[in-house]
């Protein structure tokens, strides 16, 4: 194809997206659109998969059967969400094996929030309430993104995600209405998860390199700063109901903006964790790669069994 033809195709393509038409896997698309989507969808899938690990830590130690079945169901949902997203990503012409390889080798990123440890039961509450809360704010606009398979996967994810946040908030509520030690545990969890949750919404707009292109392709509908403000404005009243204090001395209601002003985020910490120096980066990758490697014989055995069955069937036909 000549450069002019490609330019022409690109213009038609951008016009289709501007008209809110969806792009399906076999449609022509600019190479950059394909690569950006592979990057974003796979990061999203990897985050769901690695995101199971901090919570897996507490399944066997959940304080009651009710909490245990809920946590188990939530973690199972996350596995499912990872699988929907990997499938959507594969429609862009990358194999599942390549995607895993990128995660395991550290080439692909996942959400930094999962590189923090889960040290008490209250962390299960804080993760559901804050981390899933921030994730929902990120994900809802993606239900109408331009790439069909991604949008369809996100519709399913968003439907299932609201139980996650409610079960987390209920854990916090129970702890806050419990003994002083339990309430203290809830406050401690909020103190540790608040700032990393704000960072989850991404770098500030002036630092974000992908925002403009992503807005055009409807991979983003609001900027990181807008999403962050929305998260803070809806979460602060929820903390008030719990009787907990948001660990930000600069947090205060701004009457004029009808929004909360908040303190400076420690972006140095964010970038350190992104670069692999968070408290749990190594442990998470070790657990993930270990599980994959220890499962290899099972995958191979299943494939060998399937092939043997098929051979037997073929023989019967003859």
């Amino acid at each position, binding site marked *: 194809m000549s450069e002019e033809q490609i330019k022409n195709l690109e213009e038609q393509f951008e016009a289709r997206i501007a008209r809110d038409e969806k792009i399906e896997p076999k449609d022509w698309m600019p190479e950059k659109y394909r690569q950006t989507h592979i990057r974003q969808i796979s990061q999203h899938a990897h985050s769901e998969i690695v995101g199971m690990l901090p919570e897996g830590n507490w399944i066997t130690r959940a304080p009651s059967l009710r909490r245990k079945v809920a946590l188990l169901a939530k973690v199972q949902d996350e596995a*499912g969400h990872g699988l929907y997203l990997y499938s959507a990503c594969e429609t862009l012409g990358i194999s599942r094996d390549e995607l895993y390889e990128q995660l395991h080798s550290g080439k692909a990123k996942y959400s930094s929030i999962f590189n923090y440890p889960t040290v008490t039961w209250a962390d299960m509450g804080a993760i559901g309430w804050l981390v899933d809360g921030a994730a929902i704010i990120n994900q809802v606009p993606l239900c109408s993104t331009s790439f069909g398979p991604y949008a369809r996967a996100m519709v399913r994810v968003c439907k299932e995600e609201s139980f996650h946040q409610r079960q987390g908030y209920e854990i916090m509520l129970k702890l806050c209405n419990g003994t002083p030690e339990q309430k203290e545990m809830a406050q401690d969890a909020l103190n540790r998860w608040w700032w990393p949750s704000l960072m989850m919404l991404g770098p500030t707009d002036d630092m974000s390199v992908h925002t403009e292109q992503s807005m055009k392709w409807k991979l983003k509908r609001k900027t990181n700063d807008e999403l962050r403000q929305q998260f803070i404005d809806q979460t602060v009243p929820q903390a008030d109901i719990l009787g907990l204090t948001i660990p930000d001395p600069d947090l205060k209601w701004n009457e004029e903006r009808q929004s909360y002003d908040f303190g400076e985020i420690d972006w140095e910490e964010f970038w350190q964790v992104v670069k692999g120096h968070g408290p749990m980066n190594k442990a998470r990758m070790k657990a993930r790669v270990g599980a994959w490697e220890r499962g290899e014989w099972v995958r191979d055995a299943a*494939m060998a069994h399937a092939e043997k069955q098929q051979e037997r069937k073929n023989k019967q036909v003859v």
Partner: protein
Amino acid sequence: MSNKKNWPLWEVFVRSKNGLEHRHFGSLHAADAEMALENARDVYTRRNEGVSIWVVESKHITASNPEHNGELFEPAQDKVYRHPTFYDLPDDVKHM
């Protein structure tokens, strides 16, 4: 990495209730058809989304190419006589 073959890709179709058609829900990897069914149950129907599941190995699906949509679908465009509105009838003809 394993040298052996990877699990193939399957497409999953789910009937959400009797009376409705099976609809494409997504895809997954599985070693064989039985495992694909079981995985589809776990991945796509955790909340009673279905009463029946079909799985078919993706390689068995033949898909049309959107680049040929012109030749494929345009012939239908100039056949307006396939629609009831093409035919001129007086307004006082009822039940038609």
